[in-house]
């Protein structure tokens, strides 16, 4: 059992952070539209939220004109209120930039449960699969 990490040691906290969530950004071209997929695996909580927000920000920065930003949460094993807030903020940013933000959740309970409990399934653009997210109009 790993001991809790105490204090401000970047190495200790950094390595736990690295273990807790992995984030990859990949560019795809699907038909006529380019897309960036921010794939997250692991836990999104207060420890890892900064990396998640930074990855979404990078996604917006690198998104080609007319592209779709997809956040793939199918391998996320925990999503708490910091993550929900980040998804809401990203959706707002997307709306202001008039670029779609599509969130893939594949009905995996760790992610869909907090989204539905807070009514955010009416606010976030949710899709079952990356393919659906890319193909939607």
């Amino acid at each position, binding site marked *: 059992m790993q001991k809790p990490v105490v204090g401000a040691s970047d190495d200790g906290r950094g390595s736990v952070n690295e273990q807790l969530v992995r984030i990859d950004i990949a560019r795809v071209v699907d038909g006529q539209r380019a897309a960036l997929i921010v794939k997250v695996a692991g836990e999104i909580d207060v*420890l890892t939220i900064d990396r998640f927000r930074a990855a979404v920000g990078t996604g917006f920065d690198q998104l080609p004109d007319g592209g779709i930003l997809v956040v793939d949460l199918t391998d996320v094993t925990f999503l708490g209120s910091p993550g929900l807030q980040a998804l809401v903020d990203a959706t707002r940013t997307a709306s202001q930039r008039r670029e779609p933000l599509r969130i893939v959740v594949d009905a995996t*309970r760790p992610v869909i449960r*907090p989204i539905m409990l807070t009514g955010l399934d009416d606010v976030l653009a949710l899709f079952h699969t990356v393919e659906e997210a890319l193909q939607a109009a």
Partner: protein
Amino acid sequence: MPARLAPAMAPTETPDETLGCAASPGSSGDPVDRAGEACRPLRLALPADPVAPSVARHRLRRWLAGLAWPAVELEDIVLAVSEAVSNATEYAYLQGPPGLIDVHGEVETTPGGPCRIVVVVRDHGRWRCPPIDDENRRRGVPLMRACMDTVTIGSPDDGGEGTCVALRSKAIRVTGPPAAD
């Protein structure tokens, strides 16, 4: 228009370890002895830093799996406790030295009747008032309340410093006759 998602099926879960509980999950009609003396409560004391919620989740999941708690209810309890611990890490010790967050979990039973989990998350600090427009807080507390049967937030009973959050889960019913000796 994005497809509206249907509620998910609960994932199947195999308890990976029992933590001092007398009975294994067993076959149908064979109740878990959740009230048995061998069921130890959960006792954690975590440094109040951003790692604390993930440690609390991990330990809580193991403890609940050892009690063979149903998967759907288990995840709700983990979510609520994670929110409470997360709030404490963010607000409890902003004025003054860093401290500990206590997480105590117990099974609450009535003979032959429903079982609940009660988890108390307690810090010993003096909370800075969260910013009024902090949406995490506005979303976090309703999330806790949606996951649990009751959430009580207040001062600790012992009159000490800090804040106490008592999370009482929804009841599950113990099925089947009591195990014969």
